[in-house]
């Protein structure tokens, strides 16, 4: 899932620039699971904003909503009345949600309350760790289920660099060397053929460093268009 970190209150307040009616918008998706932007955290941010405003002697009115997800129009179209009543929206969703909100409610400032950091797993109590970088050409079948693109600091594809040290990465003793893990796992499975294969450079054009990517499920898309043509208004725009 997508993991995010709360921004400092001062930064959020700075971005609000004294706006008086604020809608704090949690998100019921990923940021709820990583304990950064769910209903509870939205309530907490609201009370922090109220307290800070009070201390500063600025009148402020804060309301809170937490839709199921902010990355889907289905769940944010219904927020119209709340958004219109506010001077600004502070969104605790990841960057995806913030952008969709800003697109749907074009005239309203939608301000991020979190820094979206990575795609990762719940790896320990209160701990999340990056595991995927969305490179668009998954090699996990060959690497024993350890991603060298996300987990090797240099995204190497032909094996460990000279910095690998006692199973740790050269950049930090707290980070496992991805290629050490891959070697150990493939070795345990008795098949080092992936390690031996000379691999061509990755196609970064398919990855997050390429251009903006779109996924279209043609079947679903066609259906929606047909419905649109039959008069089911709006459906076609949602591709």
């Amino acid at each position, binding site marked *: 899932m997508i993991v995010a970190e709360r921004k400092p209150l001062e930064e959020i307040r700075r971005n609000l620039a004294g706006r008086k009616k604020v809608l704090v918008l949690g998100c019921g998706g990923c940021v709820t699971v990583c304990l950064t932007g769910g209903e509870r955290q939205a309530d907490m941010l609201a009370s922090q904003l109220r307290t800070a405003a009070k201390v500063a002697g600025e009148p402020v009115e804060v309301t809170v909503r937490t839709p199921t997800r902010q990355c889907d129009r289905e769940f944010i179209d219904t927020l119209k009345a709340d958004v219109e009543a506010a001077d600004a929206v502070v969104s605790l969703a990841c960057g995806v949600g913030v952008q969709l909100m800003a697109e749907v409610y074009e005239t309203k400032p939608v301000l991020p309350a979190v820094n979206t950091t990575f795609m990762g797993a719940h790896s320990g109590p209160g701990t999340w760790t990056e595991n995927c970088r969305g490179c668009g050409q998954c090699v996990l079948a060959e690497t024993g289920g350890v991603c060298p693109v996300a987990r090797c600091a240099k995204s190497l594809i032909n094996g460990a660099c000279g910095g690998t040290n006692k199973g740790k990465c050269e950049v930090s003793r707290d980070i496992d060397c991805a290629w050490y893990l891959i070697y150990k796992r493939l070795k345990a499975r008795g098949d080092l053929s992936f390690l*031996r294969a000379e691999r061509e450079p990755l196609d970064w054009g398919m990855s997050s460093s390429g251009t903006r990517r779109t996924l279209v499920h043609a079947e679903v898309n066609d259906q929606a268009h047909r419905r649109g043509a039959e008069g089911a208004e709006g459906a076609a725009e949602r591709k």
Partner: protein
Amino acid sequence: MSKFRDSLASGRFTFTGEIGPPKGTNVEPVLEEAVHYLKDCCAAVNVTDIQTAVMRMSSLAVCRMLVERGIEPVLQMVTRDRNRLALQSDLLGAAALGVENVLALTGDHTTMGDHKEAKPVYDLDSVGLLQTMRKLESGTDLGRTMKGEPNQLDGAPKFFKGCVVTPCAEEVEPQIIKLEKKVAAGAEFVQTQAVYDPRAFEKFMKSIGHIKVPVMVGIVLLKNAGMAKYMNANVPGVVVPKEITARLAAADKKELKKVSVQIAGELIRDMRGCCQGAHIMPLGWDKEIPRVIEASGA
């Protein structure tokens, strides 16, 4: 025409040295030292490429300045800072400037250097860089025309391609596998990470007996006992035996350089039987290289 290649091919035990470009434009001191102390005793001189991710003058520029002074350079090229467009472009430039020897490296991570905020590139890895050089040599590049056909170069370069390996890594099997891949991708010579344990090195050389390219053992001058201890504790794949550290610790301050040179010379002497050359990394003690070679008896 690489004299360095010829020297290794002749079976002569071959020496290479190493210099680091300056942080600034004052390049004369390092060039002068190279001319005075490395020119006569080394077949070629490596020029580091933004080593340890600490910003310095371009390796290619300094390589060319060596060429002008009659010294054959080995252009070190890391994949950390340039994508495949820039790497290929610089490789063509190197060929045009008379720089033929190229050592392919991944390069220490940006966070290890003095520009921690820099965007690390790593578009290719060291194997990919070797593949790239081979492609250029064949007259094409990594790209494609609009029709999806290989691009044709107007003039193809020729390189003497090298790579590195860490012989005393804790886990040596993956090191060997990667070395096999580098050689399959076109590496024609190997310079190793620093070695201080001749027995471990001999064992490593036996285990790569099937890899038929010349190997030059890496020798980093240990300047004092503190440095020996530091390398042992912090540099991946470097093991400094206690006896060496003890010799440095026991040395009189005035004698330290002599002892250091003696240790390096003895290491080469003890390992020259199982490899084809030595790559000496003096870390600023360039003046000592001739004495190290003398002490090695080679």
